[in-house]
C-alpha cells in the first residue's frame, strides 16, 4: 500500500444551521460530518459518493481546508493541517487544488482564458515563463492555443471544464479535489472529461478525490470508493470489490437505483414487500 497523502481520523465538521437561526443571534451548529476515518494513498484516485445531504462536498472542502474541522485530524504528508491558520496554509494552497462543478460560475467572465490560468501561477510565484506555462496547460487538456485570448462565454460546457482542469493542474499540485465536475455536462462531453482526467491523473501521478452523486461514472476512474450517507462512511473499499460485491444494503440500493441503458422490464415493478 502506498504511503497516504491524506490521513483522516475522527473527522467532524459542524456548520451553522441557517434553517434554525433565530431572528437575532447566531444560528445553532449542525454536525455535518460525524466522525470519518480514511486514508487517501499517494497517486490514487478515490471516488467519494453519496446522495444530497450526505456530506460529500463538506468533506471535500475540509480536505482542502476551506473549512476547519470541529474535531479529529487531517494529516497531509504526515503533517496535521486541521487547525492551521490562513497564513500557515498559504504555502500549501498550491498543492491543494480544486476543480468545480460549474465552470460557468467559477471562471471570471471578464478575464481571458489566458489570465484565468495565469492568475494562480502568478500568486504562487510561478510568474516567470508565464506564456509557456499557460500554453503547456492548454495543450495538456487538449485545447488549441488560440483559446488563450477567448472569454468564458465563447466556450462550450466541455471546453470550460477543460479550462477549469488546466487552471488546477498548471500548478502541478499534489492533490486535486474534483467536486461533481461532470454533473452538468452532456453524456458525450462527460465521457471526454472523464477520459481526460483519467489520463492526466495517471500521467502526472496525481492524488484525486472525485466527488460524485453518480456511482456509474466512477468505476473506471477510481481505484477506491468511499460511500457516504448522512455524514458517515457507509462503506469504503477497492472499486471492483465495491461494485462486484457491495457489503452494505445502502450501497446495493444505490447501485440498483441506477438506470442502466439496457432493457429490463422488471426494473419498474414495485418492490415486493420485505
Amino acid at each position: 500500500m502506498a504511503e497516504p497523502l491524506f490521513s483522516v481520523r475522527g473527522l467532524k465538521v459542524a456548520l451553522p444551521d441557517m434553517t434554525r437561526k433565530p431572528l437575532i443571534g447566531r444560528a445553532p451548529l449542525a454536525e455535518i460530518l460525524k466522525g470519518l476515518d480514511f486514508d487517501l494513498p499517494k497517486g490514487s484516485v478515490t471516488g467519494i459518493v453519496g446522495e444530497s445531504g450526505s456530506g460529500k462536498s463538506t468533506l471535500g472542502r475540509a480536505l482542502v481546508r476551506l473549512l476547519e474541522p470541529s474535531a479529529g485530524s487531517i494529516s497531509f504528508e504526515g503533517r496535521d493541517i486541521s487547525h492551521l491558520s490562513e497564513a500557515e496554509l498559504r504555502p500549501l494552497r498550491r498543492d491543494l487544488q480544486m476543480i468545480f462543478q460549474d465552470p460557468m460560475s467559477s471562471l471570471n467572465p471578464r478575464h481571458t482564458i489566458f489570465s484565468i490560468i495565469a492568475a494562480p501561477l502568478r500568486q504562487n510565484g510561478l510568474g516567470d515563463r508565464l506564456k509557456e506555462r499557460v500554453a503547456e496547460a492548454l495543450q495538456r487538456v487538449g485545447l488549441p492555443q488560440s483559446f488563450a485570448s477567448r472569454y468564458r462565454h465563447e466556450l462550450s460546457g466541455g471546453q470550460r471544464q477543460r479550462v477549469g482542469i488546466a487552471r488546477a493542474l498548471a500548478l502541478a499540485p499534489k492533490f486535486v479535489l474534483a467536486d461533481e465536475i461532470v454533473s452538468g455536462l452532456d453524456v458525450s462531453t462527460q465521457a471526454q472529461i472523464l477520459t481526460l482526467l483519467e489520463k492526466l491523473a495517471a500521467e502526472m501521478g496525481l492524488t484525486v478525490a472525485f466527488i460524485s452523486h453518480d456511482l456509474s461514472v466512477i468505476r473506471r476512474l477510481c481505484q477506491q470508493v468511499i460511500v457516504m450517507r448522512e455524514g458517515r462512511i457507509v462503506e469504503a473499499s477497492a472499486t471492483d470489490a465495491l461494485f462486484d460485491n457491495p457489503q452494505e444494503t445502502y450501497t446495493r440500493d444505490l447501485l440498483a437505483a441506477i438506470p442502466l441503458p439496457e432493457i429490463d422490464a422488471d426494473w419498474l415493478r414495485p418492490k415486493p414487500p420485505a
Partner: protein
Amino acid sequence: MSACLDIRGLSAVLPNGQRVLRSVSLSVQPGEVRALVGESGAGKTMIGKAVLGVLPKSVRVVEGEMLIEGEDLGRLDAKARRTLIGARTALIPQDPLTALNPSRRIASQMTDRLVRILGWSGERADKRIRQLLDEVQIRDPERVLKSYPHELSGGMRQRVLIAAAFAAEPRLIVADEPTTALDVTVQKQILRLIAQLQRDHGTAILFVTHDLGVVAKVSQKVSVLYAGKVVEEAETAQLFAAPQHGYTRALIAATPRYTDPYASLKPVDESVLAGLTAEIAAADKEWRPSHG
C-alpha cells in the same frame, strides 16, 4: 383510433431565421410512453413546449401540423386551442421548486387548475386531489396540503406535481426531465410512480430526457434528436438492440454503465458529429418552409 399526439413535419425558427426544429415528425399512441432523447440544445424541451402551446415568443412555427386526438391545433382559434390543450394535456416539469409558487400552500396550487381552468367545484377538486395524493403514496395528505413548497423534500414536491398532472385525467402528459434534479434512489421511486399511474390511468406520455438509461426503463418508443432533427425513431427495445444511426450508437457508447466500464463512457467521435452537422447544414440550404 387516431394518435393521442401526432406531429407532422414541424419546423420552427428564431427571429434571425435560424432553424430550431427541423421537420420533426413523431406520434404518441394512446396509453404509450414515447421518450424524446437528446443532448442539450437538441430541441427536446422545445417540442414539449410546442405541444403545450407555450413556446417562447421568439420561436415561430413556420410549417407542419400538430394534432391532439385527431384535432388539428392549427385549425383552431387561440381560445379553442388553449381549451383543448388545457383539457387534454398536462405537464410534469423538471424542477418542482420553480414550478410551484413559493408563497402559496400546496392545496390551493393543486386545485387551482381544476377549478379555474376546468370549472370544477372546490369540493370536487379537493376530493380529487386527495385521491391522487393517495395514488402517489403520500401518507399524510393533510400536512402536505397545508405546506408551502419549501417545507417539502424534492421527492415530495415531485410527487405533488405528478398528482396534479394526473388529477384532471389528461390524455397526454409531457414529462420534461422529471427526475433530473433528484437523487438516484428517489429517481427510481418517482419513475416507478409515474409508470404505475400511467398504466392505471391509460395516459400517453411524451417523456423528455437526456438519459438513455431512463429511456430504456420507461419508454416503449423513442425518438433521438440532434439539433432539432429526429435522427432516429424506433421501438425502444429495437433501438438498444440494433441502433441504426451513427449518432445513436455514439450516444449509447458514451452513456456510463458501471457493469461494463470499458465498453461504456466512450467519447463521441468528432467525425460523427461533423458529418451530422454538415448533413443538417446542407438540408437547411435547400429548405423553404412549405407555408407560413
